[in-house]
């Protein structure tokens, strides 16, 4: 760390050590809250904390300023212990305007830190935020309500004014100066939680490399915010959070979508087979396309298709050509891709599909998270059309899941759907960088031998048919979406053959179970309640279960990575617990599968708000189930 960056901490103010903190920056879409949150995340990461983040922004690109629906926020939890979620209730809230205060105040703990930018609490903004009017017909300023300061540790700071003042002598216009105010807030919060400013200073220098005035302005404002915390009479103490005990190694911050993209790069590098990635822009999946487009050096060919159907069918065409065909979308796009995925099922070609789930149905909540595409993934195509379904549990896990999807797809010649979600896609965590060499091998053998060749000849272990690259002499053959005779691949309308092929396609997917390692049980191997989760709820479930365990309850959890086929040991595990709880951000999809598959009396815990589940509410559901048992 550079020596200049950290302003000296005066001994005047005491520093209290905390285990963890949950803070949220909230403001207008144009207030730079995402950048502020990401920067604070980096600072906390530098300090060695474990972290989980939750960016939350409106679907509108430039929502009207000051409105409730234009509020953008970034929440993170950082701590000296394992941090599984972005946190339920806030220890600190920064509200840059009245709308942000109105939207987010209810999430702040009683007694929590509340920092408001007083300059933004003018009549216009109060009106836009819809605060009730007084007798004179003027909107009431919530900051004048004595109850606010009674319930929270309210800090009224003229962030805009002080930002302007510290930039007085710089040749910037008023708008440009105003835009720096988020760094004042960041400087102040960095002081409150004693996180190092170094990474932010570096980032400012990099970001505005071409404009030294902007560098100067943002650094000044950042330091002004920091100094304000230190010197203003307002703050009587600040907090330290020790570095977390994390496995040793080199870390980086990782978001789910970037991890998916990089996992594909790792697979391309290992297989030495080009990837053709077809996609049509859709929230929250677009950033995978954008990320991959940066990495042509891995022979990843990105194709921004004319629509979702072209995106998936181009991927199928690429797989037919001997490349790894990949497509990505969110729920609405996956619905359009159904027939194309079915073609890959029928043609028995490898295909990887990323579904970054969002709130639905229809357009739904494009920027919010949900887990309601499990049924679509498993059954959302015509006829008997089984595919492999897997789900990552954390942003960093997306790297491994993408790699695993490719491995299974080419080994079994099947489509593999990866169910990520908006929360994993945009959320980030400190990620222990793996040694790429330790990733499992992905053997690919294209058939070139003519002797005994038939298009639907099957590998006895995997039931995979041979993958033949067009251009291979002597193996010219035709495949397609019409039912085929097994082995020869000739068109066949024979009833018994169709029945046989339906079973064969299902068995092929079922055999992927041989790839699944023993299920990891978080807790003891039998007990009162087993919590079964999948996907992005991993953090919330784990935090809740750990808390229940600390309270001495016989509760364990498992988190399913493989949803189709399910792990071979799952049935046995389910029978070791009295009750089974399945928390999901849907109306009960995995729970239905488990009940059908294993005839167990599993119950769901379901909230579909477009937001991650809170660990506290899962804990309550566990406790209720424990009580119901008695």
């Amino acid at each position, binding site marked *: 760390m550079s020596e200049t960056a950290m302003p000296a901490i005066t001994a005047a103010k005491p520093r209290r050590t905390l285990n963890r903190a949950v803070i949220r920056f909230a403001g207008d879409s144009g207030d730079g809250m995402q950048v502020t949150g990401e920067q604070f995340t980096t600072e906390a990461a530098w300090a060695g904390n474990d972290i989980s983040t939750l960016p939350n922004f409106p679907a509108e690109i430039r929502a009207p300023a000051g409105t409730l629906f234009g509020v953008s926020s970034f929440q993170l939890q950082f701590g000296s212990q394992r941090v599984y979620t972005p946190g339920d209730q806030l220890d600190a809230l920064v509200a840059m305007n009245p709308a942000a205060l109105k939207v987010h105040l209810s999430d702040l703990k009683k007694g929590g830190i509340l920092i408001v930018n007083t300059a933004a609490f003018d009549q216009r903004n109060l009106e836009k935020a819809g605060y009730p009017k007084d007798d004179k017909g003027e909107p009431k300023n919530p900051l004048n309500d004595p109850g606010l300061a009674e319930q929270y540790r309210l800090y009224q700071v003229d962030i805009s004014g002080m930002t302007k003042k510290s930039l007085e002598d710089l040749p910037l216009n008023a708008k440009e100066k105003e835009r720096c105010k988020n760094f004042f807030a960041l400087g102040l919060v960095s002081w409150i939680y004693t996180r190092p400013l170094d990474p932010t200073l570096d980032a400012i220098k990099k970001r505005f490399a071409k404009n030294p005035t902007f560098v100067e302005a943002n650094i000044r404002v950042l330091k002004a915010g920091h100094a304000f915390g230190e010197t203003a009479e307002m703050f009587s103490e600040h907090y330290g959070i020790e570095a977390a005990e994390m496995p040793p190694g080199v870390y980086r911050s990782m978001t789910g979508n970037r991890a998916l993209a990089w996992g594909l790069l790792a697979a391309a*590098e290992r297989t030495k087979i080009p990837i053709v990635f077809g996609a049509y822009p859709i929230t929250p999946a677009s950033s995978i396309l954008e990320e991959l487009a940066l990495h042509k050096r891995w022979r990843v060919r990105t194709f921004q*298709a004319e629509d979702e159907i072209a995106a998936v069918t181009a991927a199928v065409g690429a797989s037919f050509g001997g490349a790894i065909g990949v497509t990505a979308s969110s729920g609405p796009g996956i619905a359009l891709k159904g027939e194309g995925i079915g073609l890959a099922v029928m043609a028995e070609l490898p295909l990887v599909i990323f579904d970054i789930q969002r709130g639905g149905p229809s357009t739904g909540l494009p920027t919010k998270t949900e887990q309601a595409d499990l049924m679509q993934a498993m059954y959302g195509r015509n006829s008997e059309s089984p595919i492999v379904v897997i789900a990552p549990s954390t942003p960093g896990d997306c790297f491994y899941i993408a790699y695993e999807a490719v491995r299974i797809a080419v080994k079994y010649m099947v489509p593999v759907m990866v169910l990520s979600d908006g929360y994993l896609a945009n959320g980030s965590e400190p990620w222990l960088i793996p040694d790429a060499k330790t990733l499992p091998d992905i053997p690919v053998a294209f058939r070139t031998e003519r002797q005994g060749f038939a298009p639907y000849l099957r590998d006895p272990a995997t039931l995979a048919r041979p993958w033949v690259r*067009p251009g291979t002499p002597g193996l010219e053959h035709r495949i397609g979406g019409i039912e085929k005779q097994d082995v020869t691949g000739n068109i066949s309308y024979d009833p018994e053959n169709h029945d046989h092929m339906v079973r064969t396609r299902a068995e092929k997917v079922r055999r992927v179970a041989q790839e699944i390692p023993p299920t990891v049980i978080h807790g003891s191997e039998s007990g009162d309640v087993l919590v079964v989760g999948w996907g992005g709820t991993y953090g919330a479930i784990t935090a809740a279960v750990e808390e229940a365990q600390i309270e001495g309850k016989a509760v364990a959890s498992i988190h399913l990575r493989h949803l189709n086929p399910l792990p071979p040991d799952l049935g046995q595990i389910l029978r070791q617990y009295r009750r089974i709880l399945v928390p999901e951000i849907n109306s009960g999809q995995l729970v239905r599968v488990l009940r059908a598959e294993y005839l167990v009396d599993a119950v769901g815990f379901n909230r579909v708000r477009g937001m991650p589940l809170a660990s506290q509410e899962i804990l309550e559901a566990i406790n209720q189930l424990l009580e119901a048992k008695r």
Partner: protein
Amino acid sequence: MSTVTGTPGAAPKYTKKDFESDQDVRWCPGCGDYAILSAVQKTMPDLGIPREDIVFISGIGCSSRFPYYMNTYGFHTIHGRAPAIATGLKLARPELKVFVVTGDGDGLSIGGNHLLHVLRRNVDVTILLFNNRIYGLTKGQYSPTSELGKVTKSTPMGSADRPVSPCAFALAAGATFVARTVDRNIAHMEETLKRAAHHKGAAFVEILQNCNVYNDLAWNVLYDKESKILHECRLEDGKPITFGPADDRRGLVLEGLKPKVVKVSEVPESALWKHDAADRAAAMVLGQLWAPEYPIPLGTLLNQEGETTYEEIVVQQEQKAISDRGQGDVAKLLMAGETWKIG
């Protein structure tokens, strides 16, 4: 069986027979598709490309059974999507020779969007659109090229929607090669297919094809001997656009953008519209012409040579990225940017 691998020019001497597959052809007896299949098989040896480097991709419909009958690589896919599948294949394997076989319903109705985009991108594929102005495989509903007022099973009182002209569509989409031919003129069809197949970039051929079961003689204007003489207009590059009986030849002159039919004998040859297949604007006008007001142009409406293809640009960008910064290395990528060490 071919024993030669990969490189074009190293293809063995093929005959038509080398391209016939072992599958029974299942079109209705008398279908125009038989003549097209034969013409395509006959064209193949002329390409000088090893058989294993040729791929036929189709969608759904009568025409789309085509790949099964070609002894090359083939993929019979889903309705309307063949252009997108071919695009993915060319992205993965730019060196392959890829044909797309489609029909008026497959290519212009359910797959209209993909046809538009494969053409505008100038993907190096040869697209054969069999236009019979009817849905055959679903047993006789009207198609997007059926004439207004067409009475079919789904339009008992006549269709209410106006037809699209496939060639005009392809030209407007930005195809770099557009031609029209007819299933009952074998020699012309072979010649046209040859030119299309040799074109680099998106080549589009409309083949007027007879469905003798559901829309017999839809192209009678070009089948009937007398009508054919009056309306068929063979385009020849560099020559005046003429048609009609030998003793009463007609030609076209342009009045502004509007073509006017004239008697060849009544104007000097220099006044006649001379066909220039490289002229896109002229091709756009040609694409609009139809009987009875105008002749029906057959042959190459547009042939824009030397245009860069989509996949060429993709590969160029990839090679530039590799030559600038080297092959990708995941181990380096993972460590690039902001990292920190613990323990």
